[in-house]
């Protein structure tokens, strides 16, 4: 049974995370790469269903692998404009493609309170990310559904 059984998922744009960071701190360097900590100091979330600020105090634990890719895990909190606190756990991968363009895709997971943002708990999300500059990353978040 090696054939494809299901069509590709549908991806629906939901919101954008705009994350402000400070320069990375080097944690350790080995032959396999360098582990880094990148402080997350603020930012905003914009979308039809959510408007929020990114709270300082989170961070991105990143591994700069000697094979050329970065594997990143960011944990931080959002506070919505109606006072809900949402935890973000976003794991992803970055590399430079052969044509020089960046590949930067993440798999965010959210913990939201019951009520208006409960859909964030049970959705399956993909983040399409761009590093605007060394201090700012923007991630368009899509929800995935299958047929």
């Amino acid at each position: 049974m090696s054939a494809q059984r299901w069509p590709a998922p549908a991806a629906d744009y939901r919101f954008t995370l705009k994350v402000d960071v400070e320069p990375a701190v080097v944690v350790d360097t080995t032959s396999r790469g360098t582990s880094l900590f990148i402080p997350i100091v603020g930012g905003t979330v914009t979308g039809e269903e959510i408007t929020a600020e990114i709270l300082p105090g989170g961070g991105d634990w990143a591994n700069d692998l000697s094979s050329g890719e970065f594997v990143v895990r960011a944990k931080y909190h959002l506070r919505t404009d109606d006072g809900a606190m949402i935890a973000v756990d976003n794991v992803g991968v970055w590399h430079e493609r052969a044509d020089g363009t960046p590949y930067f895709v993440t798999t965010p997971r959210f913990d939201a309170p019951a009520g208006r943002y409960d859909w964030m708990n049970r959705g399956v999300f993909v983040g399409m990310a761009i590093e605007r500059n060394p201090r700012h990353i923007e991630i368009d978040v899509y929800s995935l559904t299958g047929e």
Partner: protein
Amino acid sequence: MTAAPPAFEWLAHVRVDVGEPQDLGSDISGGRRVVPILGGTVTGGWTGRILAGGADWQTVLEDGSVRIDARYPVHLDGVGPVLFRVRGARPSNAATDTFCTTLLVDGAVGTALGRAAYATVGSKVPGRIEYDVFEIR
């Protein structure tokens, strides 16, 4: 919007054999349980087999939907042993509806596998989960 929307390219078909869930009580997130992963196969553009020892550490939410958080070793032909990290959700444990997850592959340093993120679409019957793997481009 800033970056391009995701596109998906089919890569492989996976069958996962799972055991009975072990109840772990509950914590602040909801009911917790662990489902042992017993084995399985990978076919298509990737080929290989799922090794025993992995598990899906699930959270059951108040409405019965299940948050999936699985890690399981896979031996891929031409690559060797890797770790599949799967996160997702499905409506309930009993549902046979199609559901999606995301997949990251650890341990494939230096190969194309570890440089990308993947989405899966699949469904569950008792004792088995099947899904298609799509590279997110």
